[in-house]
């Protein structure tokens, strides 16, 4: 049972990690916590359901559709909810947080109206491919999720540290004005970042649909809050921290169900938020800076 539960935990943790990567990317560049990220993830999952189960199209089209739609949502999010606030006089640093909460509420209720409150099944033959190793069953989807999450993390790290666009992005994160003086198209950089982050949410959405065969409008909120806990655990804006934090939370949640009281499963994430923020605001993997706690 231990190994099976560990596989469950790693699968869940990998999905958490992909969600958290999107969070941490936006935070790293914009210093904004995108509260709508969970809902974008949920929309991605629904797009997956609609393309595969309703329209009966193959899985790879579902991936493309979900990435496309969530990327578009990311663009809209940046244009409508974030850009108008940027550089405006007298706007408090809380404004983007509140504004993205607004977007998250709109998206959650929109999907209520479009898809209904219930669970939508995500039927796909691919999700049923399995291997038998001894007494343990491993699904291909579980391996795929783990591989995708690692791949995304590595690509992102590489992109940020080695490519020109990544460097522009980090420069923007460091200081918006200086970067723009140095010839970085900050507007485009920021938009790109939000779009990439949202598309990653879309990927996570499809993966959840495949792994758990269940998609519903409420999953965005719960996943969003978990993602938030993870970036706090792993350190805000820290890509490797998001990955490690995600796996840690996934395994911890599974562990508390397996060996403790499943009623407190969700509390793990929130208690983590509180303790990390109070004791080590820079996160487990973050570097200590003067600004971290402030």
């Amino acid at each position, binding site marked *: 049972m231990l190994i099976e539960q560990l596989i469950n935990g790693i699968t869940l943790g990998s999905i958490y990690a992909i969600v958290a990567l999107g969070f941490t990317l936006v935070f790293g560049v914009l210093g904004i916590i995108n509260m709508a990220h969970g809902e974008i993830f949920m929309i991605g999952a629904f797009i997956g359901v609609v393309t595969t189960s309703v329209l009966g199209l193959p899985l790879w089209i579902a991936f493309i559709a979900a990435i496309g739609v969530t990327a578009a949502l990311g663009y809209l999010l940046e244009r409508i*909810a974030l850009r*108008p606030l940027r550089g405006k006089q007298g706007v408090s*640093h809380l404004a983007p947080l509140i504004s993205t909460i*607004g977007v998250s509420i709109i998206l959650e209720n929109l999907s209520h109206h479009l898809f209904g409150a219930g669970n939508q099944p995500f039927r796909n033959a691919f999700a049923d491919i399995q291997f038998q190793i001894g007494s343990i069953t491993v699904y291909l989807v579980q391996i795929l999720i783990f591989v995708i999450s690692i791949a995304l993390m590595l690509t992102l790290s590489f992109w940020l540290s080695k490519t020109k666009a990544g460097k522009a992005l980090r420069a923007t994160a460091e200081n918006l004005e200086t970067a723009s003086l140095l010839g970085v198209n900050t507007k485009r950089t920021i938009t790109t970042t939000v779009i990439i982050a949202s598309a990653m949410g879309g990927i996570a959405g499809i993966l959840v649909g495949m792994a758990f065969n269940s998609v519903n409008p409420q999953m965005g909120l719960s996943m969003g809050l978990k993602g938030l806990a993870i970036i706090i655990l792993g350190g805000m804006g820290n890509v490797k921290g998001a990955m490690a934090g995600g796996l840690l939370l996934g395994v911890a949640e599974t562990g508390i169900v397996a060996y403790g009281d499943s009623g407190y499963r969700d509390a793990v994430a929130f208690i983590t938020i509180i303790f990390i923020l*109070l004791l080590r605001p820079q996160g487990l993997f973050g570097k200590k800076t003067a600004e971290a706690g402030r």
Partner: protein
Amino acid sequence: MLGEILNPYYLQVAAFIMINIILAISIYITLSSGQLSLGSAGFMGIGAYTSALLTIHFELPIIVGILAGAVVAGIIGILIGIPALRLQGVYLAIATLGFGEVVRIIFVNWESVTRGSIGLSGIPHMGRELLRFFKDIGFDPDMIGLKNNQFIYLLVLLILVLINIILIWFFTRQNKSRIGRAFAAIKMDEKAAEAMGLNITYYKVLSFAQGAVLAGFAGALYAHVLAYISPADFAYHRAIEILIFSVFGGSEVILGAVFGATFLTLLPEALRFISEYRYMIYGAILVLMMAFRPQGIIDASVLNWFKKNLKSKRGTNHGTRINKNN
């Protein structure tokens, strides 16, 4: 005559408006020192459960229960507030969000005390208890031509209005006092305020705790007006709803909170078809307000304009003009 005018439906709606105003003020007070708390639903729940449990199990009078609810919420507010002060802005918002959810999860799981999701029913109802009291001393609502439920909700509403008037008076005074100015200074620039010699820790905890006390107080009132509470009443969405009251109405002046809570409580009642899209509208409000009017509908300049107009047209019919703005 009185009996025909007083429809319990409207009394009931008005009572919820009053409770929502208190909640909106609780957010306003924390915001006035530049802190955003998303834990108000948690504090509200603490107040509600404290008061409900005390009145059910120990048969304390409702007023003692409500005050205890507010006090317990305040104490927890201080306990959370002191360490949380190291956090600023979004970090505080997230820590309080986590706090609110933990509180709800505790309510769900601590079944021996809270009865879990079943919720607490049979909480003494403020109005019904008062009715009993009045009947005991030989007063029957029939004597002034009122039905029982009219009388009950009239009493509840009167009490709530009175509480609101006192609270608004108190916080308007506080705003003009040393404390209010300190809050404003911290909101403007924390470091500068510190450099000026303000004890920012004290003031920040004070404003955070005041918000917690008010939320707990409103929660306790809520428990005794509904007579039934369950953990789902104090979830994340409630915290957001409370935040919207203040953000929409105006987070810079206390009347903004009053206006926001009143307007947004009346809106779905007045326009039933809106009810279905209520949350979508809430979401749109948040986005639009942040983009175009981050200070909310009512701010100091709107108030000044009113002040001028009221002065110049004193003696005309006040009621209609104010209605127009609601």
